[in-house]
């Protein structure tokens, strides 16, 4: 595989259930070594997309390639290079944590025992406990251990932290950064679907926002924070009725004017300054705010 082969390449993906959640012509490319965010509201088609990537669902149209391979015809080759942490984790309830990890390890070529020991310690998981007795947070932790120990090239995370308490969420993300990314700098690729965007803000370096089964915005995270700005101006009287081309949203509230700029922020700030406001501030939008502004 050459270095330029994307870890994931999705073209014109279509999947329909005849229900609300479906995918209608999604395009998405993830280069190796990136941490890629897939953002969308509930029902936007994130999980369906994940399942098509995992070959758990057969696309009705378009193509999915992982490491340049078709996951439906190269199932084993593809699966040995990836790991998956779903939203709802289920294990055989009669197995202990130890037995579960050994069972999962038996499907893998590689299993890093040192990493496993370190993570069980860190999460304070009791290897002798039956998985039926684990909390939701602990089940997710076991699933994360099972996903990291085989040292896969690609880690797929589908709403991994929803429904977990803040401490477990924080540890989860630190583990992905520490234990997973540590292994092969520049090689370990992550695709994470989530609507809890702010938690993953620092980790994500590129993202796609999807809505109703389509990709509506794909950007580099730093670029997005540079391009989207929230500009606030307060005037001594009512804000002027000036029209600002390039402003996504304009809100007037008493003597205040708030604009969301999508590019062209500096020009808008310049124009506002010309109107002699009492105060004028501008700040970047966080990824979560970009998401909200895009879907509003």
């Amino acid at each position, binding site marked *: 595989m050459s270095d330029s082969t994307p870890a994931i390449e999705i073209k014109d993906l279509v999947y329909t259930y005849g229900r609300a959640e479906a995918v209608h012509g999604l395009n998405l490319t993830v280069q190796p*070594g990136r*941490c890629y965010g897939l953002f969308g509201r509930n029902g936007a088609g994130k999980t369906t997309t994940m399942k098509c990537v995992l070959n758990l669902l057969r696309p009705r149209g378009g193509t999915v390639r992982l490491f340049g391979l078709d996951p439906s015809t190269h199932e084993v080759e593809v699966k040995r290079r990836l790991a998956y942490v779903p939203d709802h984790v289920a294990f055989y309830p009669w197995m202990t944590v130890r037995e579960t990890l050994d069972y999962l390890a038996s499907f893998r070529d590689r299993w890093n025992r040192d990493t496993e020991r370190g993570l069980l310690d860190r999460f304070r998981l009791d290897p002798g406990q039956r998985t039926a007795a684990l909390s939701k947070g602990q089940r997710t932790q076991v699933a994360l251990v099972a996903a990291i120990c085989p040292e896969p090239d690609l880690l797929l995370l589908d709403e991994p932290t929803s429904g977990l308490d803040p401490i477990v969420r*924080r540890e989860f*993300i*630190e583990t992905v*950064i*520490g234990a997973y*990314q*540590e292994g092969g*700098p*520049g090689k370990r690729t992550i695709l994470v679907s989530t609507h809890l965007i702010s*938690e993953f*803000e*620092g*980790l*994500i*370096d590129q993202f796609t926002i999807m809505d109703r089964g389509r990709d509506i915005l794909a950007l580099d*995270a*730093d670029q997005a*924070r*540079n391009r989207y*700005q929230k500009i606030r101006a307060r005037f001594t009287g009512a804000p002027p009725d000036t029209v600002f081309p390039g402003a996504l949203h304009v809100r007037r509230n008493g003597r205040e004017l708030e604009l969301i700029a999508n590019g062209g922020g500096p020009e808008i700030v310049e124009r506002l*300054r010309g109107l002699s406001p009492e105060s004028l501030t501008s*700040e*970047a*939008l*966080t*990824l979560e705010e970009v998401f909200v502004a895009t879907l509003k």
Partner: protein
Amino acid sequence: MTAGATMLLQINFKSGMPVYLQVVDQIKTAAASGAIQSGEAIPSIRPLAEELRVNRNTIAKAYTELESQGIIESIPGKGCFIKPNNSPLKKEVRRKLLTEEIDQVIVQAHHLQVPPSEFLNLVRERLAVMDERQRSNETPKSP
């Protein structure tokens, strides 16, 4: 005292500045103010990335940048250290780089309607603050 304890970095996603540049700037500031002394170690990539909860590639990129600017040096197997403050650049080059930065601040001052005299006073004030910080960070060494 370890460098990790004295160096507190903070990422602000609302600044609009790329995250890796925020790390570069803050480490440069810490080195300039003496919060980290030359020869002192800076945290290695993994713990810093975990602590800030940012992609480790971002920290790696920041360290590469700091190394190319001659602020830190990485010693294989030992980690990254603040280099003694000898800029490898010639004096004219250093002046030119600084001139560009100063010009930008002057433009900003103009737009914020800060007159030149007030601007110069502000510069003196900030130099004094930096100087004070540097002095307070110089730990008295026992003979």
